[in-house]
């Protein structure tokens, strides 16, 4: 399989997944999206393993790292701010408070996960007592 075919497979899988998730929301089914996402991921992995060309290398990894970092830097404070605003408005709009708390807890979980990975990679890449 070449890179182009892999890209087409990816688009088809993503579109099918979108359709299935949309359908499962309509019929209020919880199991269907879980199964669909699992099957989709397995299919994508299968397609990727059949690609003979190099589709990922250090440059794509570096781009991905930078994109993730920027996304994190923008997304985290934005969502935290929206969460705080929604919580602050709880007396005026009581039904928005729950969304505010959900956003705030999500940001907390994200920061916790970030710190765990930061500590892990910091240790992996040599943080420790000085040697003489």
């Amino acid at each position: 399989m070449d890179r182009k075919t892999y890209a087409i497979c990816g688009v088809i899988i993503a579109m099918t997944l979108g359709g299935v998730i949309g359908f499962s929301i309509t019929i209020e089914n919880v199991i269907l999206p879980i199964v669909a996402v699992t099957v989709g991921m397995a299919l994508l992995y299968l397609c990727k393993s059949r690609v003979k060309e190099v589709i990922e290398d250090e440059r794509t990894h570096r781009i991905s790292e930078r994109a993730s970092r920027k996304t994190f830097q923008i997304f985290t404070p934005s969502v935290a701010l929206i969460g705080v605003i929604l919580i602050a408005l709880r007396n005026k709009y009581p039904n928005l408070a729950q969304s505010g708390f959900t956003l705030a807890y999500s940001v907390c979980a994200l920061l916790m996960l970030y710190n765990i990975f930061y500590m892990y990679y910091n240790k992996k890449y040599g943080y420790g007592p000085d040697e003489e």
Partner: protein
Amino acid sequence: MRNKLKVYRAMHDLTQENLAEKLEVTRQTIISIEKGKYDPSLRLAFKIAAFFGVKIEDIFIYEDKKK
């Protein structure tokens, strides 16, 4: 950082696609290095130098950006 990758590739009569295949990277990476838009890792830089049988500094020339 400047580099002479394009020169060495031409000297060995290789296309970007061929070189990418031999170095196990994407063609876009070779293009980006040649254009000076991407500085390869030390590992890839050594791999490139070893592939052409030269020293790393023969291909890659360090330039301080502040200057």
